[in-house]
């Protein structure tokens, strides 16, 4: 199963993760 998020954000948006990285519920994805 997979979850896709599509959202609007300011162009200065920065990701905290990168492809291939393991994540857990509640972990920061971006800000």
């Amino acid at each position: 199963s997979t979850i896709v998020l599509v959202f609007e954000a300011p162009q200065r948006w920065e990701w905290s993760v990168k492809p291939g990285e393991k994540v857990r519920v509640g972990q920061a994805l971006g800000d």
Partner: protein
Amino acid sequence: VAHAWRTTETKWYPLPLAVGALLLVGLAWKHEYQRRRREAEVTLSGDGEVLKLQGPWQVHVLGALPLRQLSRLWGWLNSHELPLWLRPYGYGFYAWLFGVNLEEMDPADLSAYRSLGEFFYRGLKDGARPIAGTELVSPSDGTVVHLGEIQANRRIEQIKGVTYSLDALLGRGQSSTPVLSPSLPPREGTQDSAFAEINGIPYSLISLMGSPSSKPPNAPHRPATPIKAQDQGDRAIHQPVGEKVHHSVQVAQEMGAQAVTSLGHTVREGNSLFYIVVYLGPGDYHRFHSPASWVVEKRRHFSGELFSVNPWLVSRLPNLFVLNERVALLGKWRHGFFSFIPVGATNVGSINISFDTDLRTNAHSAPPVGTFVEASYSSASALLGGWPAVKGEEMGGFALG
């Protein structure tokens, strides 16, 4: 021959089980093959692209299988109650095979789970997943497959050089069926200032909405992360309370073809659309939580296939996420448009949304591929115009079959 035909006695014998099973599989395959032929020319993509199954031979072999039937059979098999003595060994083996952390689940006793399906949909102990204070957090355990910014051509990159249409993923235009109004449980008071930034509603009013004394009847017995009032006073509020968000069509046109037509919104000046794809492995915790505080306005249920979504197939089957069955939850957050799309797979064809008990996925008689059924959540909150999902709150999950 004519004489033999008239005089030979006919004797009937029961077919062996294996032959009967083969006949049934053959009939299912024929039915599936005919369905696929009928749907082969369906235009799924918002930009008029006709989507067909393409890829290496393994993809075509998978495409010939009755995946939806297999998924439901898998779910049925795993809903059977296991004997008490077998449970610790069976689930222990599963945990060893797929790397499940048994120490964080709730309840911790393996024999408490009656079936593999129940074990798969296990909950977590309180505090097992702390929620970060940043704006967007992971909705689930898993692996980040891809992320990035959506360009003006409105296509999302599946793998390097292979893209699929944003409009096909979220739906474009109106549903061909009437818009449903599911019966939603009363909403508890939500004390999150992020909602004040979404609709420009005074914070004091938001904290009072819903029925503070009532608990949703279908709410999970104990969410992995308790819903608490969040102090977000350190955030910069970008607009004065009470002022409506101004979506300028002209600005969007100047930015390029970035309009989010699925909700009729346009992207605000200085904003862009971003995406991230998280893959949940067989050993991962399979419930999902709200990645931000946002308002869910609509649900679009897309019928489709149930291909596996493991990274191997993602890299070989273009348009995989558009071909598969999925539920698109559409709404808004403090920066504008927000959507959350759980995509089903062969082993986990059932997508549950905690507050929407009317939703039925992986049904036997699914509508044609490429169509969607739309439901409006506007009755959940007159103030916000949808279901307020609090950051970190459990929203649903994937179940076997």
